[in-house]
């Protein structure tokens, strides 16, 4: 595979600032009536001409402050956003561990949710049926698998979601600050699984505030600031520049639990 797993070329992602767009017909009419151009909003550039390559088998860390554009990069790779300009190339099957359990329905049982979530992630029904026992076993859900997920503890919920998301045998794994999930024992299992993916030569892209995770896991790191790529270098170096940038007084960030 000569092509890189992921290639960004001059990617710009701009968003309209949300309050200023006409949300209702009335506002649209008012705008029309006053002959104001509808585009009175201003554009916010979340990413400004970002270019980088991620070769197959690399583990890439992305660091930066909140709102710097890290998650936007992941969402573009995942295909959630289509960039405003520039080109993005993604070669391989993606497992987005961006928001675990985003597709879960609370009234449905664990088993029913495995099916729907797996289909949403692009698996076929047959593949899911084949993978189901392994998913249930890894998630350590036991007999709760046939109970509605609204009765699950948040740990069980995350375990099931992680288990489904990583069962797809991805080529590229996207991880957004989720590894603070569950109890210590399960975290170890998650890291083990991610470690396995690494050994199998899969590409991993990890967004994290946790310097240790970046240092231990990654081969390379991107430092993003205000939508610009500041550094594309070794993890140690990127972390050093990050520390410099935010000032040394910043306490080590405890990554927030992902919301549902």
């Amino acid at each position, binding site marked *: 595979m000569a092509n890189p797993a992921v290639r960004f070329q001059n990617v710009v992602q701009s968003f309209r600032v949300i309050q200023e767009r006409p949300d209702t017909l009335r506002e649209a009419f008012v705008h029309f009536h006053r002959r104001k151009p509808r585009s009175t909003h201003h554009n916010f550039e979340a990413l400004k001409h970002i270019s980088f390559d991620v070769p197959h088998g690399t583990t890439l860390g992305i660091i930066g402050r909140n709102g710097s554009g890290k998650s936007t990069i992941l969402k573009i790779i995942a295909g959630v956003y*289509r960039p405003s300009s520039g080109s993005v190339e993604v070669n391989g099957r993606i497992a*987005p561990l961006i928001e675990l359990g985003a597709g879960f329905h609370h009234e449905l049982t664990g088993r029913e949710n495995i*099916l729907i979530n797996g289909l*949403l992630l692009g698996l076929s029904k047959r593949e899911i049926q084949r993978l189901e026992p392994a998913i249930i076993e890894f998630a350590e859900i036991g007999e709760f698998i046939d109970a509605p997920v609204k009765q699950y503890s948040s740990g069980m919920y995350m375990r099931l979601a992680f288990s489904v998301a990583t069962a797809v045998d991805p080529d590229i794994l996207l991880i957004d600050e989720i590894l603070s999930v569950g109890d210590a024992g399960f975290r170890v299992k998650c890291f083990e699984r991610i470690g396995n993916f690494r050994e199998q030569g899969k590409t991993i892209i990890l967004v994290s505030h946790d310097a240790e995770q970046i240092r231990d896991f990654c081969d390379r790191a991107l430092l993003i600031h205000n939508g610009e790529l500041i550094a594309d270098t070794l993890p140690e170096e990127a972390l050093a520049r990050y520390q410099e940038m935010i000032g040394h007084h910043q306490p080590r960030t405890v990554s927030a639990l992902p919301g549902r």
Partner: protein
Amino acid sequence: MLQLFRDVYRYRELIWALALKELRVRYKRSVLGFLWALLNPLMMMIILTLVFGSIMRFSIDHYAIFLLSMLLPWTFFSQALSYSVESVVGNAQLLKKVRVPKLVFPMAAVVANIINFLLSLLPLALLIVVLRFPLHWTWIYLPIPMVGLFLFTLGSAFFFAAINVFFRDISHIVQILLSAWFYASPIIYSLDFIPKKYHIFFRLNPMLYVLNGFRLSIYYGLLPSAGSIAMSLACGAAAVAIGFGLFRRYQDIFVFYI
């Protein structure tokens, strides 16, 4: 249009699973569960039969069946539309996090209601037998107006679900539109009551041809004319072409507006 068939085939398992999910959630936590899909229309039919059969008598023979032959497809249309108009916006959390084919949401809402609609034909057949109304052989013609109905509903579903992303007023407007449309269609009355000179206006209603197909084959035991059949299918195809065309054109930017 070809693109639509390809996508539907590709995501058929997902669409089916989402449709079943919708029905399952609708009937969850009720003792009778799925039976409600049958009981609900049956109860409605019994009430209508009692009201129009013994209390208010119309000049139309077996008014309940006359009414139901069009009311059931109409109810399907109006419910499917009410569900699907919110289907993209309602899945905002999902669309913002994972890449999913957007067309599956309105599609699943329509499919769920198709299942409900087909189930409601069973109590209708039962009622017809119980009332000793003839069960016409023309029932076997029903799949043709059904195709027209499902296509028209699907096209409208795509159309309104897409616009609702940009203007949330649409879901309210659809409700008003549906109730006006209901009275403008000859569902509770017959076109025969309307002076001939106004018929031209009724013919502009794209739902008329499909609804007529249902009433003719269920109530009158007749087949619609070839022209009417062609019109019902053409309206369905046109709705899909316009609705899906619009949906596809804007689906990539939905995520920025939800």
